[in-house]
C-alpha cells in the first residue's frame, strides 16, 4: 500500500515538469539574476554594513553588531542562586532578575548579559572587561549585586535634588518592601491609560492611607536600596490598600514596558532571600581575542577549501553550490547577530562545521543528476529528475536532524541551547538553499544550450546526450 502511494509521489512530480519548459527558461534566468543580486547585497551588508544618507537606513556591519561570548571578549561571569535552604518560585526569580538588572544599572554597567535559567533557578550574569578596567571592580560588582533588595516608599525633601533625583529622608519611610503584597502592570480598556496596580498588606494600607492623606499634591519616592526608581505624585488620599501608579510615556508600548519594569522592581522589593554567587569566573581578554582571530582564519580557509572541492569535483553545479554555501553562511551569521545570541568559540567552531555539512544537500542532488546522466538522460532531463528524486532524501534527513535540534533546544540550557539553535538554523538554511536557490540556478543554467555538456557536470563521455 505504502509503496504504491510512494510511486505516486514520483509520478506526480514527473508530470509537473512536462509543462511549459520554454517559459521556465526566462523565468529561472530572471529569478537567478535576482537571487545573485540578493546574495551579493546580503554579503556586502554583512561585511561592510549599509548606510543610505538621508534615510533612516543604517545597518551596522556584522563584525560590530555580533555579540561575542565572554570566553572571547574576556570578563567576569557569575552564577547567582538562592541559598540552598530556599526554594524560590518562578515569580521570585523574575523579581530577583529585576533586582540584579537594577543594581547593575545603578553601577552603570550597561554592557552585560543577565540570563534567568528558569529550570535551574539560577541567574547568570556576564560582564565583559572594559578597556582600562582592573580585575577587582568587576568581581566586586558581582558580589554586591546578590545582596537582599530593600524597597522603600519614602517621603522626600523636594527642595534638595541630587544627581540621582530626590534626596531621601531616611527617617520618613512610609512603606517597606514587605508591606507590598503584589504589584502588577495594567491598562484601562476605555482610556488606554497604562498603570501599575499595588496591593498592600493591611498594615501597609493603614500607613499608606495616613501618608497619602498628608501628602496630596506632593511626591512619594520609590527607592530600591539607595536608587530612586520612580516618584509619582499623590492625587488623593488612598484608603483600602489598593492603589495605582499612572505611567507617562511617549507611546503606549513604551508606557506598558515601563509599567512592567516598575511592577517587577516593586515585586523584587518583597524579595526575602539573598542571592549567592559561589562561582565568579574571570576570563582574560587577550587570550580570547587571539583565539577569535585564529578561528576566524580557520573558518575562511575551510570555506575556501570546501568551495574549491565542490568546484573541482562538480564543476558547473559546483559553482552554484558555492554561491548557495556563501548565502547559507551569510544568512546564518546575520540571523545569529540579529537574534542577539552571544557567540562563543565553540559556537563559531559549530558554524565552521556547518560549512562542511552545508553542502550535503547539493552533493545529494548533484550525485543524483550524475547518475541520471550516466543512465542516458539528457542533462536537462537529468536535472529535473535528479532534483525530484533527491528531494525525499534531503527532506527526511533534515527532518531527523531537526528533531535532534528541537529536542536539545527544549531540554537543554545555556551552551546546549545555543548549540541547538545554531544546528536548527543550519538545517533549515541547508534545506532552503538546496530547494530554492540551487534549483533555480540549475534550471536557469540548463536552459542555456552551450552549458549542457556532460563534462560540465563532472560526467565522463563527451556531449553525446545533449
Amino acid at each position, binding site marked *: 500500500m*505504502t*509503496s504504491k502511494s*510512494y510511486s505516486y509521489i514520483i509520478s506526480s512530480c514527473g508530470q509537473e515538469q512536462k509543462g511549459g519548459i520554454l517559459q521556465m527558461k526566462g523565468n529561472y534566468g530572471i529569478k537567478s539574476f535576482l537571487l545573485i543580486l540578493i546574495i551579493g547585497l546580503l554579503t556586502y551588508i554583512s561585511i561592510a554594513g549599509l548606510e543610505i544618507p538621508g534615510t533612516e537606513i543604517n545597518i551596522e556591519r556584522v563584525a560590530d553588531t555580533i555579540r561575542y561570548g565572554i*570566553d572571547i571578549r*574576556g570578563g567576569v561571569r557569575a*552564577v547567582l542562586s538562592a541559598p540552598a535552604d530556599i526554594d524560590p518560585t518562578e515569580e521570585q526569580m523574575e523579581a530577583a532578575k529585576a533586582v540584579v538588572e537594577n543594581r547593575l544599572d545603578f553601577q552603570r554597567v550597561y554592557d552585560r548579559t543577565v540570563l534567568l535559567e528558569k529550570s535551574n533557578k539560577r541567574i547568570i550574569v556576564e560582564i565583559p572587561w572594559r578597556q582600562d578596567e582592573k*580585575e577587582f571592580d568587576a568581581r566586586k560588582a558581582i*558580589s554586591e549585586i546578590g545582596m537582599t533588595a530593600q524597597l522603600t516608599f519614602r517621603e522626600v525633601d523636594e527642595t534638595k535634588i541630587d544627581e540621582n533625583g530626590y534626596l531621601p529622608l531616611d527617617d520618613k519611610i512610609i512603606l517597606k518592601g514587605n508591606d507590598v503584597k503584589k504589584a502588577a502592570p495594567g491598562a484601562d480598556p476605555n482610556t488606554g491609560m497604562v498603570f501599575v496596580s499595588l496591593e498592600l498588606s493591611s498594615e501597609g494600607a493603614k500607613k499608606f492611607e495616613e501618608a497619602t492623606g498628608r501628602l496630596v499634591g506632593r511626591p512619594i519616592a520609590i527607592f530600591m536600596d539607595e536608587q530612586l526608581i520612580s516618584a509619582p505624585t499623590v492625587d488623593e488620599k488612598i484608603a483600602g490598600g489598593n492603589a495605582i501608579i499612572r505611567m507617562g510615556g511617549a507611546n503606549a508600548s513604551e508606557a506598558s514596558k515601563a509599567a512592567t519594569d516598575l511592577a517587577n522592581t516593586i515585586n523584587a522589593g518583597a524579595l526575602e532571600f539573598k542571592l549567592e554567587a*559561589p*562561582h*565568579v*569566573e*574571570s*576570563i*582574560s581578554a*587577550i*587570550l580570547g581575542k*587571539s*583565539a577569535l*582571530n*585564529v578561528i576566524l*582564519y*580557520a*573558518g575562511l*580557509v*575551510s570555506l575556501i577549501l*570546501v568551495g574549491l*572541492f565542490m568546484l573541482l569535483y562538480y564543476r558547473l553545479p559546483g559553482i552554484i553550490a558555492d554561491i548557495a554555501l556563501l548565502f547559507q553562511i551569510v544568512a546564518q551569521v546575520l540571523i545569529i547577530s540579529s537574534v542577539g545570541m552571544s557567540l562563543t*568559540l*565553540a559556537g563559531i567552531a*559549530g558554524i*565552521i*562545521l556547518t*560549512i*562542511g*555539512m552545508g*553542502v*550535503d544537500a547539493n*552533493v*545529494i542532488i548533484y*550525485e543524483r543528476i550524475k547518475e541520471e546522466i550516466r543512465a542516458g538522460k539528457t542533462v536537462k532531463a537529468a536535472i529535473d529528475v535528479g532534483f525530484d*528524486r533527491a528531494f*525525499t*532524501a534531503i527532506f*527526511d*534527513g*533534515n527532518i*531527523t*536532524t531537526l*528533531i*535532534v535540534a528541537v*529536542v*536539545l533546544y527544549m*531540554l*537543554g*540550557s545555556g*551552551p*546546549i541551547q545555543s*548549540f541547538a539553535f545554531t*544546528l536548527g538554523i543550519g538545517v533549515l538554511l541547508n534545506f532552503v538553499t538546496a530547494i530554492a536557490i540551487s534549483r533555480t540556478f540549475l534550471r536557469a543554467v540548463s536552459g542555456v544550450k552551450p552549458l549542457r555538456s556532460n563534462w560540465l557536470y563532472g560526467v565522463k563521455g563527451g556531449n553525446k546526450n545533449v
Partner: protein
Amino acid sequence: MFDFIGNRKYFYAFSALILVAGIIGLIVNQGLNLDIQFQGGTIVEFQMKDENFDVSKAEAVAEEATGKIVSAQSSYSLDSEKNERIDMLVLSVSSSNALSEEEHEKLSKAIQENFEIQENTVANTRHVDPVMGKELALKSLFSIALASVFMILYVWIRFKVMGGLVAGVAAVVALLHDVMVMITLYAITGLPVNDSFIAAILTIVGYSINDTIVIFDRIRENSALLRKESLASITNKSIVQTLSRTINTSVTTITCILTVYIFASYNNIESIKNFMLPLLAGLLSGTYSTIFIANPVYVMLKERQAKKQATAKA
C-alpha cells in the same frame, strides 16, 4: 560490486574490537579523565613574564596559600595579533566548593610574591560546580535518549516500506555505535571529559542520523523498483549508489574540522583542539557506522523478523 551486507561479520568484528579497546582503556586508565568540570574545583591561570618558572614550586606555594590540593602546569598560547608568546601558569585547585573570594585573594598574592607575573594582566579563573557538570551530562543523555525515541518514531512512519520500526532501531544502533567510539577515544587518550565532549557527541548524533537516512531513502526507493531482488541485494545496491555522496560529504566536513584543528594546534588553543578531536573521531565513526553498521543491522533484523513470521505461519 563490493558486498557490504555479506561481509557484515567483519564489520561487526571491527567495531567490537574498538569496543574492547575502549574497555581496556577504561580499565587501564581507571575510568574516564573527568575534567574539573565534573569533579568540582577552580582553575586559576596566571600570565607569566616568561617561561622560566618552577612549576613544582608554584604547586607548593599554591597549596600552602589555599590549604587544598593543587596541580600546577605550565602552558602557553600565541597572541595572534602581536605574534607574541603568552606563557601561563595553570593551577587546578580541586575541592567540592569553589574557592572563596578570600582564598582567591590569598592565592593571587602568594603567586605574585613568589613569581614574576606579566604586568597589567588578569588571572583567569574558572570555577566548577560538580553538580552543574553532572546536571549538564544527565540532561544531555536524557536529550539524546528522547531525540532517539522521536527519530525511531519518525523513521517508523516515513519508512514504512522498509519495515518502519526495524529501520528506526537500526539507525539508532548506529548512533550508539558512534557514541561508543567517541567514549573509546576518551578512554584511551585520557582527554578530559567536559562540555566539549558533550557538544561533540550531540553534533555527531545530528550528523550520523542524517547520513544514515540518505541511504535508507535509497533503499525505500529501490524497494519499489526492484521488487524481485532480495533485501540484502537491494540494500547493497543502495549503499553503492549513494557511496560517492557519503564520501564527499564526509570529505568536506572533515576538511573543515581538520583545518580548525590544525589552526588551533599551531596556536595552542587547548579548548578548540579538545573540541575538534572528538568531532573528527565521531565523524569517521559516523561515516563508518552509516555504511557498515546501520544497513547490515537493518538487513539482519529484517531477516530475523521474516524467519520468525515464517515459523509462526508454519
